[in-house]
């Protein structure tokens, strides 16, 4: 039995009269990658926003390691080990790669009262920033200015920052969006490596990538879970074919 890190129970979110998510159940286990699929407007972003604390749920609860964290805000969730990357690249564009990751690492030992400490020379924080940069495959590019790098590199940096916070649960919102095929393939390899000792939720449109790396897939349609299971189950599910894959397939025929 794998260790369930993050469990979402009956998550519901309404915006006025619109129900963006309704009774969504999700379980993220250590060592697995759980993909969230669904057409545009299915409620994937709302779901990931509720898990990261950017949006409070209207109903339902979220458990991390058995503890209820529903009431924690986004920065508190980061502190307990939930890291998130964003669909639209969300970095510090004028800082170097190293400073982006160093700030992320510093968040684990903030010590704002230590006014005599030279922040950019703190060996512990630097070591963790460098480790995260290496793990995300950006070694050698530490001193590049983040905003001047390629889109793919910025997506890697986004993940490096999450890693520098020592997150055990990674919520990755379309990390492959806008990437070329080479960059995509590299990112898929990176995701496979990251999965080994963490729990990952992947929101992604790239079907090939999802079926290549996901251990579990949950398909969301109209804010509700249509189907959840391993990739084979999803691929064979008549409901999914009807609602999603079949529809998309029909477009191409």
């Amino acid at each position, binding site marked *: 039995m794998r260790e369930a890190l993050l469990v979402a129970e009956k998550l519901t979110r309404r915006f006025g009269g619109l129900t963006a998510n309704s009774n969504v159940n999700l379980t993220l286990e250590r060592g697995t990658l759980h993909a969230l699929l669904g057409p545009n407007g299915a409620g994937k972003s709302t779901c990931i926003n509720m898990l*990261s604390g*950017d949006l409070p749920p209207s109903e339902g609860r979220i458990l991390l390691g058995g503890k209820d964290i529903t009431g924690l*805000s*986004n*920065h*508190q969730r*980061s*502190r307990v080990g939930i890291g*998130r990357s*964003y669909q639209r690249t*969300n*970095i*510090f*564009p*004028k*800082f170097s790669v190293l*400073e982006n990751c*160093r*700030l*992320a690492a*510093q*968040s*684990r030992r*903030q*010590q*704002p*009262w*230590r*006014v*005599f*400490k*030279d*922040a*950019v020379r*703190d060996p512990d924080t630097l070591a963790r920033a460098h480790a995260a940069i290496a793990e995300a495959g950006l070694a050698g590019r530490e001193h590049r200015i983040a905003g001047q790098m390629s889109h793919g590199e910025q997506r890697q940096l986004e993940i490096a*920052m999450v890693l520098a*916070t020592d997150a055990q649960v990674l919520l990755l919102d379309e990390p492959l969006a806008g990437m070329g095929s080479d960059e995509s393939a590299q990112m898929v390899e990176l995701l496979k490596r990251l999965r080994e000792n963490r729990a990952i939720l992947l929101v992604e449109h790239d079907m090939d990538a999802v079926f290549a790396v996901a251990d579990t897939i949950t398909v969301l349609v109209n804010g509700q879970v249509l189907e959840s299971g391993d990739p084979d189950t999803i691929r064979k599910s008549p409901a999914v074919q009807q609602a999603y894959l079949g529809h998309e397939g029909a477009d191409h025929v």
Partner: protein
Amino acid sequence: MNPTSQRLILPLLLAALLAFPSFGSDFYVELVAKTLVLAIFAMSLDLLVGFTGLVSFGHAAYFGIAAYAVAMITPKYDPASLWLALPAAIIAAGLAAFVIGLFVLRTKGIYFIMVTLAFAQMVFFLFHDTNLGGGSDGVNINFKPDAAIAGWAPFDLNEPGQLYYFIVAALVAVYGVLKLVLRSPFGRVLIGIRSNEHRMLSLGYATFYYKLAAFTLAGALAGVAGFLYAVLSGFVTPELLAWHQSGNVLLMVILGGMGNLVGAIAGAFAFTAMQEAFGAWTKHWQLAMGLAIVAAVLFLPGGLSAIPARLKRAMTGEEK
């Protein structure tokens, strides 16, 4: 300015400031002293505007509160102790900034600008319309604070020359405190907040408390300037807290180049110099000043502190 040229230029500037009283006339020594006080004020605002991305349009409130604190703590026929009056002024300003910060930091962008202005105007009318500090006439400070510790006085603020050096020392101290803070983990977080506050939140920083601490520190340091202003001029009026004053200090920061402490000092000097030059030339000096500021913002983005880099680019013929 890059760090190496700063390391060369700063000691030279300090030496010039220290040597100035030996060849400047009394009038100019006092004018420079007043400008240095405004430079401290501008640096304190730059911590918010330039480094944290919080455009406060009510920074004069903390400057004025500290000045009034000196007036209120000074007995009518005796001097107050410097070692009581200075901390009292700093704490009064810092405390006011802390309390006001609790409210204003819940807003962002244009709302933050408006709400800081609104609070500062409240403080202005508190002093203007009540007898708390002499009403709209203001109040005299008959005696400058006394630096004596148990009968021994290391210096005397009644001596214009010694007061000048005291102000230079305060400028160096405030510059040093800000440099230290900006280098520390706390300061790096502030700079991160300016760049991308949402990302700082998702990285686990409770940015509200960081901003509150920065707002309080900026208020306390504005208090140092307010204290020195009150001691230097010997007279405190509600105008010190008025929105003109908040606007002037914001212009100094913008003129000098936001996010650069030396720039803030340069901005204070440029502002005073323009005020003096245009004032001597025409009585409509504010019109000329306005045009000069518009020109500076249009043709010198990045402010005075961007000049060295621009010169370097021009001389080496490098493209931007």
